[in-house]
């Protein structure tokens, strides 16, 4: 048995039809195909690791249930449908949390990290910190470090930074691109994850 890969809307509709027909490989393909994207969507709203995982699983449970019951009106737009479920679940959770803690706004809720990361995660985080420190230390020009700081930490507007530093936009993009590329290299080297 092999996982079926689909590449266009027609194939997406076929994937949905196969799930409805009870094809377990098609269900695996749905999860494999959307897992990473759904994780990013949920992570942007809910950052508590355990809750994040629960919401991702609940998203696929609901989506597959709907597919099995043939309740998907537009099978070719299954991507948007699954994204919608994930977003709604995450926002709903954040809203409930906000009611309880009365502190965060929608979209920024639940910023408190998991208080007890496991030892593996702790080790991984240490490695990642080392990697980012290395990336920064390799930026020899102070202006490049300032670009990174103001854009990603201070979250200033790109045009404003370019204007302040007298930096053309393409040069700004090159600074960011080089930093991300180097970080990715170190990350892959560190985790072996491609």
């Amino acid at each position: 048995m092999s996982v079926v890969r689909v590449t266009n809307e027609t194939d997406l509709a076929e994937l949905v039809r196969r799930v409805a027909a009870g094809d377990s490989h098609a269900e695996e393909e749905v999860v494999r195909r959307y897992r990473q994207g759904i994780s990013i969507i949920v992570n942007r709203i809910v950052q508590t690791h355990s809750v994040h995982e629960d919401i991702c699983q609940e998203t696929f449970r609901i989506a597959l249930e709907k597919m099995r019951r043939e309740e998907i009106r537009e099978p070719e737009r299954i991507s948007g449908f699954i994204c919608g479920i994930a977003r709604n679940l995450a926002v709903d959770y954040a809203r409930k949390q906000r009611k309880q803690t009365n502190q965060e706004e929608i979209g920024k809720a639940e910023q408190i990290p998991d208080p007890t990361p496991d030892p593996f995660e702790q080790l991984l985080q240490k490695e990642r910190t080392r990697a980012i420190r290395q990336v920064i230390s390799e930026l020899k020009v102070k202006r490049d470090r300032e670009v990174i700081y103001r854009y990603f930490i201070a979250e200033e507007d790109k045009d404003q930074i370019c204007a302040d530093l007298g930096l053309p936009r393409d040069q700004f993009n090159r600074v960011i691109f080089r930093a991300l590329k180097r970080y990715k290299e170190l990350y892959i080297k560190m985790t072996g994850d491609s």
Partner: protein
Amino acid sequence: MDHDYIEQFDLVDQYLMGRLASEESARFEEHFVDCPQCLDRLKTTGNFIHDLKLLTAQEAIQSDEGVPKGPSWSSSFQPFRSKPLALAASFLLLVTIAGALLMTSQIRRLRSEVNEAKSASAEWERRYEEERSSASLSDQKREEAERSFAEQLRTLEARLAKGDEPKTQPAPGAGAEGPTSVESGTDLPIHSLHAVRGGGESGGGMTNEIALPGSPSGFGITIPLEGDVKYKNYRVTIFSNNRVIWKKNDSKPNRYNSLSMVFNSALFRPGNFLLTVEGVTEDGGSVPVGNYPFRITRDTGNKLSP
């Protein structure tokens, strides 16, 4: 949604920083959830931002706790690295703002006072100018009238000198000494006064009479001085009920040794008056020359009784 659009508008960064509108965010999600290229970029950039923030936060905490771990990468871009510095800066900022507010308030108050003073000053200046121009106009009119009367007097005196005596009209009961009230060729009546020894305002029965018309008009008084010219200037004073109603300190005698004055009839009400003449000496003193009592009447024509 294509990759050119995503690149052009930095959708990956904007999405991760939460800067996209919800509609565009949903459209982008629908795209990237099924796009390995975008997922890769989202993952790399997301991890980069996460780790960068974590590193910055760790360094900030270590800096606050005073743990020497080498220079912080972001320290030179942060306005205030430590809590005490931030507090000091906040305090300074507050003091500056409070000072600025206080100064602004004081400046506003002072400006308001200055404006009030300016406006009061302008008002006074305006009034002063008005009064000055009014006084100037008044002076001009007076000078013109005096010039006009003086001209008429000169004309009359010239005619008298040529022997061309003006018509005279003796007052009822007037003596044969001749007329003491004259009328020139102009409309200005001239009245001549004679001295009365020891005469008060009543004149002790001997008085000059001047009849004035009912309506206000000008008239002249001429006083023939006795003997040679003794003084350059004479002081002429007119009394009514022992009260000075008119005075001139620098009356000069003409070549006929007479003093001439022009009055507006409105100055006089019917009744008795006393005109005194004093010579003004070189040292500013005065010497009595004569008393000239006269009576003013109305609507009886130009007449004079010695």
